[in-house]
């Protein structure tokens, strides 16, 4: 298997304390470390129960027509580095928005939101998607070209645009969608998390409702890297985390995808799995985590990495615990407990 091609120089590791941003159902928290990442201090909550002031909104429908209403903003991604102040937002029901003023005002990306195929791709407005509602997420901007975008939709699939969102095409070949009656559908897949590596922008990884995949562009067909996971664990989960300096290293956090989809750590034994070779081989990382009766659920935005050397890996659970590893997953430590349900964990200013 070829190593990922690196398009840019590898950045130097970060140094100094780490600030974690933790988004929960009931507000935001900060967790700050000392220089050694041994001691962590929790602060918050901020914005307890509040909603931002100028959220994205769909256009008002013409008289007699039914318009869309944003239920919630689900995903935020900064725009291309050449476009300061640019942000993309993915919302539920599935919609894509862009801000050019740091999020003060938002415009719908009409090439997606008003695309006549949108309703077909997402299976109709009644499609519920995940428990929080069908949503657009995993917005990836090609660091070489601000016009080149990838998005993921639950459910709908992965899509690509080469013209800043004016036109879109499905990118789902090879990805299973075993909840659909059609074999090898062009769209309708359930992307949980899709990430492009900034140092190797032709390498895409995807954690899907139906397995873990890798795609090397200009290829079109995803390869199921999850086939290399232990069968007893499977390759179902939500988050997927990339190493900031090595496009062949990534972490996942498997969930039980058995018959009734309990979405907790398989057998009550939480563990991350790491691959150092682009998904060909996987190794279990559970030192420090509960050895039994640990029924963790980790949402797709609730796991991340810092830019230190060795890389720190972090995750938050729906039961309000934050865990970190200062050794690239080799040993885990609890750094916060008793928080509200955790939606997202992100390193500030990475």
């Amino acid at each position: 298997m070829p190593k990922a091609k690196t398009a840019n120089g590898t950045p130097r590791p970060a140094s100094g304390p780490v600030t974690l941003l933790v988004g929960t159902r009931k507000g935001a928290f900060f967790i700050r470390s000392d220089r050694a990442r041994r001691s962590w201090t929790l602060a918050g909550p901020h914005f307890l129960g509040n909603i931002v002031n100028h959220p994205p909104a769909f256009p008002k429908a013409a008289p007699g027509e039914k318009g869309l209403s944003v239920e919630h903003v689900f995903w935020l991604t900064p725009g291309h580095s050449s476009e300061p102040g640019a942000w993309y937002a993915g919302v539920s029901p599935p919609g894509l928005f862009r801000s050019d003023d740091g999020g003060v005002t938002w415009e719908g990306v009409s090439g997606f939101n008003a695309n006549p195929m949108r309703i077909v791709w997402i299976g109709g407005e009644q499609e519920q998607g995940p428990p929080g509602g069908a949503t657009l997420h995993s917005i990836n901007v090609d660091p070489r070209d601000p016009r080149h975008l990838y998005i993921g939709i639950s459910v709908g699939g992965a899509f690509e645009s080469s013209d800043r969102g004016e036109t879109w095409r499905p990118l789902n070949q090879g990805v299973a969608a075993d909840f659909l009656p059609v074999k090898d559908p062009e769209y309708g897949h359930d992307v949980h998390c899709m990430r492009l590596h900034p140092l190797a922008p032709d390498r895409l990884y995807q954690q899907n409702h139906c397995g873990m995949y890798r795609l090397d562009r200009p290829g079109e067909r995803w390869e199921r890297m999850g086939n290399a996971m232990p069968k007893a664990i499977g390759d179902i989960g939500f988050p997927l985390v990339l190493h900031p300096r090595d496009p062949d290293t990534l972490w996942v956090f498997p969930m039980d995808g058995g018959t009734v989809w309990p979405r907790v750590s398989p057998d009550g034994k939480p563990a991350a799995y790491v691959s150092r070779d682009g998904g060909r081989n996987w190794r279990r990382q559970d030192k420090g985590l509960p050895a039994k009766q640990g029924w963790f659920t980790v949402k797709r935005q609730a796991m991340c990495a810092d830019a230190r050397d060795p890389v720190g890996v972090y995750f938050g659970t729906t039961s309000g615990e934050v865990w970190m590893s200062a050794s690239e997953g080799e040993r885990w430590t609890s750094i916060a407990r008793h928080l509200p349900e955790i939606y997202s964990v992100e390193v500030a200013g990475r």
Partner: protein
Amino acid sequence: MNVLIPSQLRDYTGGRAHVEARGATLAGLLADLERRYPGIRFRMIDEQDAIRRHIRIFVNQQQARDLGAALAANDEVVIVGALSGG
């Protein structure tokens, strides 16, 4: 007229529960509230001009179903917001 603001929207009104606003219709009243307290309307009314599903608006103790409801100067408007957690 007097408008009762639900607790979760009082960040917009400087903590005040009762505020004064004007309008010949509910739409006009909400526009006036928005002028006085920017951002408050979108918390109650979505982009299709529908009253959000967790919001109820009562005019003289009668529930208003749409923004065209007529208002008089002495009407009492009560806005109620559902809070999560029962």
